[in-house]
């Protein structure tokens, strides 16, 4: 009976793909352009490794890994600096995960192809003070399902969704602080998601910022992830910017009623061009 329970759980995990990565981050590098009639795009390579199959906070399949390699194309245009449109389109170069089939055999599943498009309309209120500047942001967003359906394994949600995020950021000559929260609801049976981010940065050089970034994410299936890690921003020129970040799941609790991959690490390297 217990084996059967585990089997069913893992089969369910095979059918229900892990939720996609609802970053509240906005192109370009979250910060630019903060001027009228600005535009830019960035290309970001991301690799995610999850080391275990879990249920709730317990590891039920140690060493059953998941690896996802994606390329993100992201862009932004500002009519007025307080009204902008952004898009984010991931391309899944390769996703691989190990699960168990109905006959207790270890099965390797793959997914690839275009992901879901996210379009946002961030509305910003900037302020300029004697010692610092910053902004408040309210960003309605929609998720457009693209790409082919895959019954076994889908990295992208491939359902329609709508989200709202709220953020605040401020910066002095030396320091940077940003925080934000967002909520996403999806069609069909995809669970709603909430996330909260907290970023602390130090302007180590005129063209360099070191950050510690922390993300928390909850969903309606009782999943919770707390991930944190360092990030490095480097400005090569007015128009070329680079950002490297690494995040580790300090707390990784997946749904309590179905198994899913957890205990992840994520590394992202992006280059952005802004005009």
């Amino acid at each position, binding site marked *: 009976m*217990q*084996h059967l329970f*585990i089997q069913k759980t893992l089969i369910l995990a095979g059918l229900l793909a892990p939720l996609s990565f609802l970053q509240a981050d906005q192109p370009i590098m979250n*910060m*630019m*352009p*903060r*001027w*009228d*009639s*600005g535009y830019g795009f960035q290309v970001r390579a991301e690799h995610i490794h999850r080391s275990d199959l879990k*249920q709730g*906070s*317990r*590891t*039920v*399949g*140690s*060493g059953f890994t998941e690896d996802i390699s994606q390329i993100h194309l992201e862009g932004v245009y500002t009519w007025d*600096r307080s009204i902008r449109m952004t898009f984010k389109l991931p391309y899944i170069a390769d996703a691989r995960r190990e699960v*168990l089939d109905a006959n*207790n*055999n*270890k099965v390797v599943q793959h997914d690839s192809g275009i992901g879901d498009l996210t379009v946002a309309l961030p509305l910003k209120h*900037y*302020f*300029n*003070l*004697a*010692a*610092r*500047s910053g902004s408040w942001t309210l960003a309605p967003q929609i998720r457009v399902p693209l790409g082919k359906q895959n019954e076994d394994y889908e990295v992208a949600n491939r359902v329609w969704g709508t989200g709202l995020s709220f953020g605040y950021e401020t*910066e*002095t*000559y*030396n320091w*940077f602080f940003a925080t934000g929260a967002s909520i996403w609801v999806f069609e069909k049976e995809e669970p709603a998601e909430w996330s909260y981010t907290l970023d602390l940065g*130090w*302007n*180590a*050089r*005129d*063209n*360099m910022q*070191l950050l*510690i970034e922390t993300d928390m994410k909850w969903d309606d299936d009782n999943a919770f992830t707390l991930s*944190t*890690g*360092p990030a490095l*921003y480097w*400005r090569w020129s*007015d*128009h070329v*910017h680079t950002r490297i970040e690494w995040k*580790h799941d*300090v*707390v990784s609790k997946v749904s309590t009623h179905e198994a899913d991959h957890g*205990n992840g690490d994520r590394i992202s390297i992006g280059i952005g061009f*802004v*005009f």
Partner: protein
Amino acid sequence: MPEYHASSLHGIRWQSYLSDSPKQYTNMKFLYTLIALTLCSATLTLNARPQHPVASEENRLTGAQEHLKGQAYQIAVYARGLVCSSCGIGLRIHLGKLDGIDKTKLDKGILLDSKNQLVIIAYDPKTPIDIAATQTAIHKAGYEPTHYYKWNGDKVIIHKLEGSE
């Protein structure tokens, strides 16, 4: 959750932890590594950029004097909020579109001094700078110009901008 053994599921290695202790150790190691990396980064870059107090009016005037001394065809504009050079590149983009900017000087005619929240603008002697257009361009770039500094051959003079607070 019961404990499963390697032999129980057709040779597939299963392990169900009775506690999360191994993962907790991993997480602690990660946190220590993170702290160590942060400290190393901080140490390496400690002297990369001197810490600076809030840009006071006095500091800004001193900064403007250093930039403008002997420069008859440059002005320094106080752009309130310019604390980050990376965010301020819109200033170079918008000011660069104005007539008369001498792009052979400074950095394409524009220098950003985020320490003192100053924008230094070099202009062509044949084309006097349009202060109103400069003010508009700085607004479009996302900052609030309130006054500007100009070298008069002897010292720096402060000029208040129209409509500024």
